[in-house]
């Protein structure tokens, strides 16, 4: 009896496996791109945003006939489960088994570190719009490119905006989770806070898995800082906001390195999200424009139409990476079915040489693969909407400062 049951299960499994094997055959007229991103696990949420950005790029390009107007784009997505070992393995798989023509970059510094090392070995250009750790650029790689700024520089807008305030606040507290991106954000905060003469009254890195944010923030509260600067991603930012309200922590302003620009931030916190500052690399208010998507605003509108929500700067940076790779492919006149090692070496050289204006802003990679610095930006949540508040020349609104105490809101 038991044996029979087992054999039914085995048969069902075998059936399930064979159902999936009929993979669509590749037309030689298509370019195949491969992408391993975290769709589940710690970075699953953010990884899905990157997947959306790539999907929109693919659909936009294909609607215009494809790359160079005639070669359709196909993307193979894999889930690396936020695990670097899996990420590297899947990039190997895309290159050696699926034989993709090109790669698209992942999200999260650990995954990108491992995946780009695999890409480098096979001489595949790898452009990420979702990783910012400075260490990515210290490896002497030739095939790695990043469209985001380095993590320490990316947060500069958060400090600049307060430096420009009158009267200028005096003290800052810096806290952040201890994963690379957020820890480096804190290093960046410290660097610019010292440069502008702010007094750092508290500095703490806490474990990413920390559950009790109240106790952690009470330490910062006891130092009574004017400004709270947080090295964060979305989850950390949400927990910090909840804890601030619970312990009635009222600095004059709070700023996050990442989180508030993700639509889920305002959705989750509602009116509590108001007055919050965030560093950004891109907003739709900027006067950027270029091929494929048109202006920054047009990219933004297209995103809302397709996904029913606004894109954040990581999505813009990811789509920007697609655009620059596409332009390089077009300028080299590459054709599907004829992309080999020599072509990809040329592509790498082209990517280093290009100086391109896009909806995401200028893209020009330095020798280490880092994008030339974008001007520091700060955004703020005002009445439930993200508005650009710094620098003054691009500001949509003046910053709302100081933040009222929780009991008066």
């Amino acid at each position, binding site marked *: 009896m*038991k*044996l029979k*049951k*087992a054999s039914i*299960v085995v048969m069902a*499994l075998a059936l*399930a*496996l064979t159902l*999936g*094997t009929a993979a669509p055959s590749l037309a030689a007229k298509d370019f195949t791109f491969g992408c391993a991103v975290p*769709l*589940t696990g710690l970075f699953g949420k953010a990884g899905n945003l990157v997947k959306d950005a790539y999907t929109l790029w693919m659909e936009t390009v294909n609607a215009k006939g494809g790359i160079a107007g005639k070669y359709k784009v196909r993307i193979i*997505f*894999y*889930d690396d*489960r936020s*695990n*670097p*070992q899996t990420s*590297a*393995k*899947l990039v*190997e*798989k895309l290159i*050696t*088994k699926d034989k993709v023509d090109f790669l698209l970059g992942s999200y999260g*510094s*650990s995954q990108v*570190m*491992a995946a780009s*090392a695999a890409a480098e*070995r096979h001489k595949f250009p790898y452009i990420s719009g979702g990783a910012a*750790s400075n*260490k990515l650029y*210290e*490896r002497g790689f030739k095939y790695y490119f990043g469209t985001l700024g380095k993590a320490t520089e990316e947060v500069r807008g958060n400090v600049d905006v307060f430096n420009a305030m009158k009267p200028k606040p005096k003290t800052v507290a810096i806290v952040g*989770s*201890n*994963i*690379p991106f*957020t*820890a*480096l954000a804190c290093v960046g905060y410290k660097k610019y806070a010292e440069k502008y003469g702010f007094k750092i009254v508290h500095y703490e*890195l806490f*474990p*990413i*898995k920390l559950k009790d944010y109240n106790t952690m923030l009470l330490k910062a509260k006891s130092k009574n800082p004017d400004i709270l600067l947080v090295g964060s991603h979305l989850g950390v930012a949400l927990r910090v906001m909840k804890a601030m309200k619970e312990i009635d922590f009222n600095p004059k302003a709070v700023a996050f390195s990442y989180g508030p620009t993700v639509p889920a931030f305002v959705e989750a916190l509602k009116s509590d999200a108001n007055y919050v500052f965030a560093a950004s690399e891109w907003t739709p208010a900027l006067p950027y424009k270029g091929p494929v998507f048109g202006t920054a605003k047009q990219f933004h509108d297209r995103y809302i139409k397709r996904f029913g929500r606004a894109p954040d700067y990581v999505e813009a940076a990811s789509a920007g990476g697609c655009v620059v790779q596409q332009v390089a492919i077009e300028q080299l006149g590459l054709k599907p079915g004829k992309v080999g090692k020599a072509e990809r070496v040329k592509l790498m050289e082209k990517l280093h040489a290009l100086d391109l204006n896009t909806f995401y802003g200028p893209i020009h990679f330095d020798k280490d693969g880092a994008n030339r610095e974008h001007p520091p930006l700060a955004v703020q949540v005002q009445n439930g909407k993200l508005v650009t508040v710094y620098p003054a020349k691009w500001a949509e609104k003046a910053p709302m400062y100081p933040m009222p105490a929780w009991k008066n809101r």
Partner: protein
Amino acid sequence: MPVKRTGFFIGLLVAVLFALLPFAGESYYIQLLTVIFYWIGLAACWNLMCGYTGYIDFGSAAYTGIGAYVAGIIMVRSGLPLLTTIPLAGLGAGVIALAVGWPTLRLRGAYFAIATFALAEALMQVAEEWTGLTEGGIGITIPQRLEEFDYYWLYLFLAALVVAITWWVEHHKHGYALKAIHEDEHAAAQVGINTHTIKLKTYVTSAFFIGMLGALEGSRLGYFKPDDVFDVHITIKMVIMSLLGGMGTVLGPVIGATFLQLIEDYLGAQFLNFYLVIIGAIIVCVIIFLPRGIVGSTIERLRLKFRRQP
């Protein structure tokens, strides 16, 4: 014992055949097998200790972490070649296992599981906080890397070695003692088995190999941070692979690790959005229908079958 020896030589032959595979050229399957061998090695280490004694270690990731950091830090600080740091990483893990195993192996059942779990978490915190040594959450970059095929061969070698040790244990007095501990530790002690020493020896051996595997994988990734190498999911995967294959059997972890990696690889490509659900369902099915694991339950059935026949 001709039957047993035949089994050993078949195993050896299979390992040699796999060792020759890279000469056929580079392909994705080499990559896939590299990862499979790595997991066979880890699962076999876990099975060696926990499958045979019944002591459930929930902190094995402590030793992948120690291994990775010991080798990594030595390479960064002293520039010693990678291959010399690997045995040092194993020794580091072994020494810690000795220090930890001495008191904790006197604990039984859930208490041992909790103690080892706490160990891995505590070490992760140490690595996070001791930034002067480990660079903390920013992560550490490993300056050296071997060739792709070297990882393939080394993982194959280490996995084969651990499986061979398991085979030896299975057919040796040491193994009978471990099984006796599993059945009834008091009784085992009363018939004259020095249960504490024998558990400690096994635990340290297992940690030694886990440490070497962790060190190699750290260099293969080229960059890691504490929560990558002390990740509790590493331990969970070792446990699941052993359970799937069959705890306390020589081939259990081999089959379990291969099976899990292959379905993960295959289903991940075919059903991007719900493959984890399918894998979960498969694991549940195996555990319901084959409670002793794939290998364990098959052996049991074969025995029953042959016994019934006149």
